[in-house]
């Protein structure tokens, strides 16, 4: 009885906030948080006050005003009558298209270069070493400019492709001709044939963005084909497990995978529209401007060099015993790499790969060096300059880049969780 009453009473005293280790950490954290919030509040207030002193308020109304400038690469329709907000969206899309294609290309380049760098072939391994060292040790903006200068200065002019009657009479060849009669690389752009439909499905307009039903239909057919093929293969495996004989599948698989989509495309009248020299430039087809190509090539090669090193590190991290065991089972080196080494290496490769993807995404803003109108070029460039809303544009731009980066890293983290080693 007496013992229980003798136990120290757990009464909270104010001094415990400092002297009791149980509470001290909370005290410090709250104090720091309050200071941080005060600091942020002070900065915001100070900025607004200073802007106000200069007669500038903070307002995002400019996003709904007419932009008045033109953008040559536009994934959704845009004219100079569109708003600054729409120009921003065009910029975001241009950023995303370089980032996505760039990440894919860099991964392909990186994996190939990383694997080849470990090749037993001395020459191949050395060439890859040179590639990696050259690309990752020179600033990427220089590569972007080099790529751009190379494309704009060494390629022929559109009018070099011109064939006049006099030239035919004289039997002269034009100074330049199209690759395979379909692709024209000029000092301005790369013009490739465009797939067009002669009997397309109607186009819907959702939130002023035209959405092609033909494309959606095609996408749906592809998805259904892939799912059908998967079911077909499960069934085949079941047959194999039952009878021990695997039925011949390749032509049925091909038919299921590609048959329906090809049929649909033929029904809609798919054909190619070739670029043609008309007036000053090539018309028709798809025109890919060199600012885009230069940015894409430079970023992919640069980031590819880093990814190559990640891949090499991942492969080297797998103990020698694994490959020896694979060889002992009679797997050829290629199969051993694909079936044994790479799946294990992936869990080492993916986390640093996320950083590389983020780097590439953020580096797209260097497109400004070659006049590529991405988010930095539209919102953070022309819009900011024409409206004089530096603060608003910068804050908005930072926010958008932050969101894009967070999306990229969350997708990659999800993938990482899917492939990481499951301990049993």
């Amino acid at each position, binding site marked *: 009885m007496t013992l229980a009453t003798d136990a120290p009473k757990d009464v909270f005293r104010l001094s415990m906030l400092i002297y009791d280790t149980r509470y001290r950490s909370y005290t410090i954290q709250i104090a720091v948080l309050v200071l941080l919030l005060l600091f*942020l509040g002070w*900065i915001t207030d*100070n900025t607004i006050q200073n802007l106000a002193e200069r007669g500038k308020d903070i307002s995002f109304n400019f996003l709904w005003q007419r932009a008045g400038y*033109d953008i040559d690469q536009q994934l959704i329709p845009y004219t100079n009558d569109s708003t600054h907000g729409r120009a921003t969206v065009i910029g975001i899309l241009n950023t995303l298209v370089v980032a996505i294609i760039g990440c894919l290309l860099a991964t392909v380049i990186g994996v190939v270069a990383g694997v080849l760098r470990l090749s037993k072939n001395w020459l191949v391994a050395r060439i890859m070493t040179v590639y990696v060292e050259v690309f990752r040790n020179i600033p990427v903006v220089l590569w972007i400019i080099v790529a751009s200068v190379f494309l704009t200065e060494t390629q022929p002019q559109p009018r070099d492709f011109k064939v006049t009657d006099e030239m035919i009479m004289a039997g002269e060849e034009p100074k330049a001709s199209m690759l395979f009669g379909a692709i024209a690389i000029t000092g*301005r752009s790369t013009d490739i044939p465009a797939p067009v439909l002669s009997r397309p499905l109607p186009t819907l307009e959702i939130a002023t963005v035209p959405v092609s039903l033909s494309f959606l239909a095609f996408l749906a057919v592809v998805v259904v084909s892939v799912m059908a093929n998967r079911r077909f293969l499960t069934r085949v495996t079941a047959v194999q497990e039952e009878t021990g004989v695997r039925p011949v599948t390749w032509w049925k698989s091909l038919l299921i995978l590609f048959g329906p989509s090809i049929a649909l495309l033929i029904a809609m009248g798919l054909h190619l529209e070739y670029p043609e020299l008309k*007036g000053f430039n090539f018309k028709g087809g798809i025109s890919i401007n060199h600012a885009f190509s230069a940015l894409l090539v430079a970023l992919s090669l640069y980031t590819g060099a880093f990814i190559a090193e990640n891949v090499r590190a991942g492969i080297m991290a797998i103990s020698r015993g694994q490959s020896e065991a694979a060889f002992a089972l009679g797997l050829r080196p290629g199969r051993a790499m694909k079936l044994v080494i790479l799946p294990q290496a992936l869990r080492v490769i993916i986390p640093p790969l996320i950083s590389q993807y983020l780097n590439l995404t953020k580096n797209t803003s260097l497109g400004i060096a070659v006049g590529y109108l991405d988010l930095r*070029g539209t919102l953070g460039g022309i819009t900011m*300059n024409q409206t004089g809303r530096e603060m608003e544009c910068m804050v908005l731009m930072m926010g958008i880049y932050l969101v894009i980066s967070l999306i990229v890293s969350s997708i990659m983290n999800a993938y990482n969780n899917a492939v990481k080693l499951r301990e049993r």
Partner: protein
Amino acid sequence: MKKTMFLGTLAATTVLAGAAFAGTLDDVKARGELLCGANPGLTGFAAPDANGEYQGFDAALCKAIAAAVLGDATKVKFVPLSSEVRFTALASGEVDVLVRNSTATYSRDNDLKLDFPVINYYDGQGFMVKKDLGVSSAKELDGATVCIQTGTTTELNLADFFKHNNITYTPVTVQDDSEAQRNYLAGSCDAFTTDASGLAAVRSSFPDPENHIILPEIISKEPLGPAVRHGDNQWGDVVRWTYNALLIAEEKGITKANLAEVEASSTDPEVRRLLGLEGDMGVMLGLDNAAFKNAILANGNYGEIFEATIGTSTPIGLARGLNALWTQGGLQYAAPFR
């Protein structure tokens, strides 16, 4: 944390800028140096010479202002600015005055909060093409690729012009004149558009200027002038009257060479006021009474500067045209100095 750092720096700069904002004249005097925002390189207007010193029509105005305020035309620090960052640099106090072929417009005056005290060059936007392109009018440029400096009024005029004439074009956006030149010469664009004076200046730096023509259409009004921050009237007045002094000097026939002689012999009261021999004109503005004399001594009067930098005797070869004095049918007209 990164964001906080950025906001911190931003706040720090705005605080500094705010401090520097009120009395630019006092700041310049205290600093002993004029910070002048200039074109990174446009021959004839502002470009570094072989010794790395900025020379040209716009650069001369900066030197005249420095001479008026500090009594020494060499006390200018030229800050090269691209067309895209120039107004931000001025608004944030990075430069005291921006003399960079900048067009005075309504929205720059009222939205960007700038003031254009004077117009030192009346210009209009034109197009330059290679002669062998076989184009003689800008209206024949349907479907052409056009190089354009980003963040300029020309960018908006271009869109308007093509839209108005119902023709199309592909824009190639570049950062500054030198980049535009490279792209134009490499053939990345069929036409290069900017202020007609800029085109003439760019053309003069080509190895083969005779193979390039400037099309006859002038598609806009481009009144170019020095810009200062809105709200600092005293500093705006310094810029305005330094410039006016150069105009009046031309009107009165005062040149760099004969200034000493005029000073000794002139009985014209306006000349005597201008040169600080009579009255307290300079002091009224917070300057020295010899301020405007120094400004004229820096590079000569407006006409002298024009002829020496971009006039018909230079490779750029621009005629006075609209920029002649009002007495000779031009638009350059200074309010009386009294």
